[in-house]
């Protein structure tokens, strides 16, 4: 035994739980459950193969060992065969179980496949596989059942919804999804569907209501449209007529068959091509305005009816929401014609009112409601300004109270004078017009207003006054002439008679001794004769009218000589409380006349003035040069020209208007009889002035004194002794060229003569425009420019135009008036010399000299 080896030693095995590890005989392969090399221990054949190849087995092999090994192999083989038999039986049993189980599963799956979800298998089986398969089949069937149930649930729900929706679609709006479901989606579906049906139902109900309302409305419209007094059409967007009411057909004669569409209507309604194009253009113009829905823009056109008759139609178009045009047709032919007639009538009325010469006014509440052009012209206000203006503004202030009072009383219902005259005030505030007013109260547009006509009678009134004055003057003149002739005749005879009374006393006195008692009475006869002769001389003055000897007279000298005469001294002695002052113009121009008569005139005026002041006072005797540029209205009418005036004014009792009328009549006297006055004094004054081609201006009022101004035409003839050679030399010219611009030929001649005399070269022109033209081509050293030239531009405007192209042109301005704003305007332009007419050689000479020297 000693050559045998232990397997654990040989293999350095440390597996102590191996049965061979502690075996003494070392026959490891014979021992069951050895752990040798771990592999193949459970496999008899593998283990035997392992042992037969094991080095230890080979080492230790001997007979005993062989026997023992064979015995072991026999035993193990037997055990293995038995075990194999048992396994065969077992496998047979499993196969059977498998076949039965699979059969059941197959059947079940077959049913499931057929759609039966209720299949269930007995899950008992000896085979776990079968058990598992059955369980799976059952789970599948259950799941399928749930799915089928769910599918059914959906199908049912879907079917019900389908049914309900079908019913709704057929009009059953009361249909509702009723079925309840555990499926949330179906419940929500039901809610939505039912809500939708409710909404649809409400909408349908609403629409039905709207439809019903629309039907009612349409019915109303139809009733209205068919019975409307105006034509109505509805036109579709495609321009065909959807509706034409009976009135339209009645109005025009056209039916829908006649005018199926708009183009046809236009052709028939407006057969004239030009008018049709005009109508279309008008519609096009208005289309923009009517494009907005609901807006109406009426237009008027003339439509040709079916029978050819033409009617004036007012169209009203409304665009409806559906794009249709609702058009109304109103026949306004009668109104249009009436309006045309009215317009013609209004034009006639307007033409009449605006062209009549009398003002026409309507007044309401003190204000002009209407005025015509004539009223505007009369007052100077434009019509627009007058409308709304208080009427009292055009009444002259002196008449406002009366006119306004009458208006107020008339408004209050009083019977007030309807025709009267009053004065109007022009807008310029100066011009006064006399108007004849005729007023009354009328109803105008349901209002109570005052209507009136205003006739400008200024010219008529002036003409009347003029005629009256002329008649008075004529009468006075005739009277004076008649009395003069009578007086002349009487004087001629009396003069012859008086020559004896005046001459013989002088002869008798020469023969009588100084102490003769007859000397006194004869002296009285002589003085009486001389006084009578003086009266006769006055009578002869009146009788000798127009034949007075004319010489050049200096009125200043005549006045001075009178004031130094014994007659004046005597007069003053009679009137000790009267003072006499003379204001004589230094450069007074001469007049042509009779010194004796002029002296007598001065004496008579001064004497009358003294007589007019029994309580004393002041007499002023004055002279001056006056240039009358415009007609002066006074006692006489003084015409334009140059005058030397003699004025005698007093502060006496004045003369009443009645006495003024007669004051120049012979033998008319207010003086105390026997004291003084023959009643011929003022008659002599009148006759003298007339003989001198002069004029008398007499201004007086009772208690306000009297001023008598006598206008004598001037002459430029000089008294030999008045010429002052040395003074003339100081303002002589030196051939300079002077342009004289004056509208009066006499003035141009006078100035021309004076300037020639002073050594100037003179050019004369009669108007401003001509002067401007002249100066465009000529140059002058100085202009003598008349201020007022009528017609044509005045001195200021002339100078302005000249200065425009000849700045700094020297000029002297001349005028018969005092300085005015226009004169001052000229002075601002640089024309500093202002020459007051009438001219004197010295004044004009000095003015020109100064201006040329500047």
């Amino acid at each position, binding site marked *: 035994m000693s050559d045998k080896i232990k397997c654990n030693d040989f293999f350095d095995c440390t597996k102590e739980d191996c049965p061979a590890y502690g075996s003494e005989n070392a026959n490891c392969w014979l021992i069951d459950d050895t752990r040798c090399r771990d592999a193949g221990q459970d496999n008899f054949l593998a283990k035997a193969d392992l042992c037969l190849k094991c080095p230890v087995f080979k080492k230790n092999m001997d007979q005993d060992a062989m026997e023992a090994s064979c015995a072991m192999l026999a035993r193990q083989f037997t055990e293995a065969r038995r075990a194999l038999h048992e396994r065969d039986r077992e496998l047979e049993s499993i196969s059977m179980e498998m076949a039965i189980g699979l059969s059941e599963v197959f059947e079940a799956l077959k*049913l499931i496949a*057929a*759609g*039966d*979800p*209720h299949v269930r298998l007995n899950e008992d089986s000896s085979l776990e596989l079968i058990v598992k398969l059955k369980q799976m089949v059952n789970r599948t069937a259950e799941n399928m059942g749930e799915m*089928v149930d769910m*599918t*059914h649930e*959906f*199908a*049912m729900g*879907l*079917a*019900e919804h*389908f*049914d309900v929706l*079908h019913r709704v679609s057929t009009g059953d709006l009361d249909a509702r999804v*009723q*079925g309840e479901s555990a499926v949330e989606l179906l419940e929500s579906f039901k809610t939505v569907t039912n809500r939708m049906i409710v909404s649809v139902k409400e909408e349908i109900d609403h629409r039905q209501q709207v439809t019903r309302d629309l039907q009612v409305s349409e019915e109303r419209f139809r009733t209205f449209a068919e019975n409307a007094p105006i034509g109505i059409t509805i036109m579709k967007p495609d321009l065909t007529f959807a509706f034409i009411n009976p009135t339209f057909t009645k109005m025009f004669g056209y039916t829908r068959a006649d005018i199926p569409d708009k183009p046809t209507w236009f052709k028939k309604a407006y057969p004239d091509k030009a008018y049709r194009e005009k109508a279309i253009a008008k519609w096009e113009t208005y289309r923009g305005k009517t494009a907005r829905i609901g807006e109406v823009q009426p237009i008027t056109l003339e439509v040709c009816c079916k029978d050819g008759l033409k009617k004036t139609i007012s169209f009203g178009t409304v665009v409806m929401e559906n794009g249709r045009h609702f058009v109304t047709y109103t026949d306004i032919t009668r109104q249009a014609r009436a309006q045309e007639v009215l317009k013609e009538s209004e034009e006639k009325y307007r033409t009449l009112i605006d062209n009549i010469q009398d003002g026409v006014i309507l007044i309401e509440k003190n204000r002009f409601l209407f005025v015509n052009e004539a009223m505007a012209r009369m007052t100077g206000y434009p019509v627009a300004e007058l409308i709304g203006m208080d009427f009292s503004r055009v009444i002259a202030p002196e008449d406002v109270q009366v006119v306004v009072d009458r208006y107020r009383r008339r408004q209050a219902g009083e019977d007030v004078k309807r025709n009267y005259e009053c004065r109007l005030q022009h807008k310029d505030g100066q011009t006064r017009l006399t108007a004849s007013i005729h007023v009354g109260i009328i109803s105008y547009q349901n209002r109570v207003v005052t209507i009136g006509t205003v006739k400008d009678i200024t010219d008529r009134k002036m003409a009347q006054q003029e005629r009256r004055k002329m008649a008075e003057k004529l009468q006075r003149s005739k009277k004076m002439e008649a009395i003069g002739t009578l007086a002349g005749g009487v004087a001629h005879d009396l003069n012859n008679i008086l020559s004896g009374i005046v001459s013989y006393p002088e002869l008798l006195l020469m023969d009588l001794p100084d102490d003769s008692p007859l000397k006194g009475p004869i002296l009285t006869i002589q003085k009486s004769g001389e006084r009578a002769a003086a009266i006769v001389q006055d009578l002869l003055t009146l009788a000798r009218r127009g034949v007075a000897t004319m010489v050049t007279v200096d009125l200043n000298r005549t006045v001075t000589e009178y004031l130094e005469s014994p007659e004046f001294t005597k007069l003053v002695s009679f009137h000790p409380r009267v003072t006499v002052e003379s204001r004589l113009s230094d450069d007074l121009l001469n007049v042509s006349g009779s010194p004796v008569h002029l002296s007598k005139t001065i004496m008579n005026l001064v004497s009358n003035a003294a007589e007019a002041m029994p309580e004393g006072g002041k007499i002023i005797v004055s002279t001056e040069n006056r240039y009358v540029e415009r007609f002066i209205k006074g006692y006489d009418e003084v015409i334009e020209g140059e005058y030397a005036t003699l004025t005698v004014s007093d502060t006496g009792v004045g003369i009443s208007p009645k006495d003024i009328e007669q004051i120049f009549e012979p033998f008319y006297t207010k003086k105390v009889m026997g004291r003084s006055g023959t009643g011929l004094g003022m008659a002599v004054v009148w006759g003298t002035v007339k003989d001198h081609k002069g004029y008398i201006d007499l201004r007086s009022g009772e208690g306000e004194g009297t001023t008598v101004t006598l206008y004598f035409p001037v002459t430029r003839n000089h008294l030999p002794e008045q010429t002052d050679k040395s003074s003339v030399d100081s303002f002589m010219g030196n051939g300079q060229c002077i342009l004289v611009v004056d509208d009066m030929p006499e003035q141009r001649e006078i100035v021309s003569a004076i300037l020639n005399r002073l050594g100037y070269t003179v050019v004369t022109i009669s108007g401003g425009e001509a002067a401007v033209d002249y100066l465009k081509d000529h140059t002058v050293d100085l202009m003598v420019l008349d201020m007022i030239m009528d017609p044509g531009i005045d001195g200021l405007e002339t100078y302005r135009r000249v200065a425009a192209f000849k700045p700094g042109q020297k000029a002297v301005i001349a005028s018969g008036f005092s300085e005015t704003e226009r004169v001052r305007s000229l002075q601002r332009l640089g024309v500093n010399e202002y020459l007051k007419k009438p001219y004197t050689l010295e004044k004009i000479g000095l003015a020109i000299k100064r201006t040329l020297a500047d």
Partner: protein
Amino acid sequence: MAVEILDMVGMKCPQPVLKIAVKATEMNPGDILEVVGDCPTFERDVRVWCQRLKKTFLSILDEGAGRKRIQILFE
């Protein structure tokens, strides 16, 4: 009154019910719809459908082999 026949043999649920639902829209009151089917749940499905949609489950005839003939009355 008319009798309409709807053959649904071979159809699996829920096809028969959906077919019936569609067909029902053509039916008038008093009409009878006769349906034939072999789906295992056919009878039950038709009954539930009639109950849900207020139709009358008039009659049922088992023709064997799973085939059933059912009459539905529409009111």
